[in-house]
């Protein structure tokens, strides 16, 4: 008992410092991990222009198509799915950028790649591109399509990123 009493301050320091050392040692890695998972988003809404990697991007238009509408049936949507389209205005900087576009649900936990022929029969509007053109000579419009379950179509966000700029990315609220 006398040993505990004579060393009480050292033991108390150990009780405090050992967890603190663990937190300090692991926190940097934890924050890196969270950032890697969620990215470091620049948020934007329709009409707002954001600069990303030296180029400018703005959300020009977005719409949704339900499977049980005429447009949905024409697009071959399966019941319970929704087609989401977004058109982005791109003003390339000195070097036209490549890009990756995904859709996330409102929670940001689920992500979808662009729709393929298996998901929907869609065609780009006249005057729009379907991918980020690395040889663009001026501003252009990028139109992308996604097919998601109905429960993800309420407040989706467009996740716009470049591999070499991650974890920085742009999130457009649709």
């Amino acid at each position, binding site marked *: 008992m006398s040993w505990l009493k004579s060393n009480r301050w050292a033991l108390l320091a150990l009780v405090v410092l050992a967890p603190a050392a663990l937190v300090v040692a692991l926190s940097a890695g934890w924050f890196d991990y969270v950032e890697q998972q969620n990215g470091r988003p620049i948020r934007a809404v329709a009409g707002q222009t954001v600069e990303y990697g030296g180029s400018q991007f703005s959300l020009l238009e977005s719409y949704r198509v339900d499977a049980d509408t005429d447009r949905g049936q024409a697009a071959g949507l*399966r019941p319970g799915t929704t087609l989401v389209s977004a058109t982005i205005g791109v003003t390339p900087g000195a070097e036209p950028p490549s890009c990756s576009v995904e859709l996330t649900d409102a929670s940001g936990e689920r992500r979808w790649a662009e729709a393929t022929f298996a998901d929907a029969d869609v065609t780009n509007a006249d005057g729009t591109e379907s991918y980020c053109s690395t040889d663009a000579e001026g501003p252009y419009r990028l139109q992308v399509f996604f097919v998601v379950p109905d429960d993800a179509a309420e407040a989706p966000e467009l996740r716009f990123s470049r591999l070499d700029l991650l974890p920085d990315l742009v999130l457009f609220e649709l």
Partner: protein
Amino acid sequence: MTRPLAWLAAAGILVAAGAVVLLEPGEQLAQGPIVVAVDPGEEGAGRNVVATFGDVRMGEVLELDSTGAMYTTEGVWVAVDVVAESVVSPTGLQSTLEIDGKEYLGSERLDTDGIESWTLAAGLPTAGTVVFEIPPELAGGTAHVRLAGSGTPRLDSVIELTVDLSSLEVAPSVTALAAGRVDP
């Protein structure tokens, strides 16, 4: 602290340290995949893949239902119907069949009609058939069919179905379903 007590405490710490070393998980446990075992028709949910195994059959020739294309083999085809979707992000699907300590990768001969060439999407199920070519002499054993997202399954989940192949007949021909999205 008295001297005998200090020695006792030191011995206790050494024993505890030894126990920790002995209890340290092996490489398979520390880095291996996390297995979600299911029965046929039962949905298995992993970190990024949800899958349900359907019918399992064996045959000498594989026939693709959509085109009627026939695929021969020097061994035996094992065909397993599956329905799968991702959970959080787009991913591919990879299948393996382990039998008698040997592991076989899912055949890529179905090309774009094989479910493994598709990208799984969250909430948008994809159906198809995973197929394996195995030596005839292994066709009577117990097989473990595993599905995982693309990439290394280390420390990730795999959905596993165990099948007693001896209970199945080797038919002259078995059908593989061309992969495609199905209703959620």
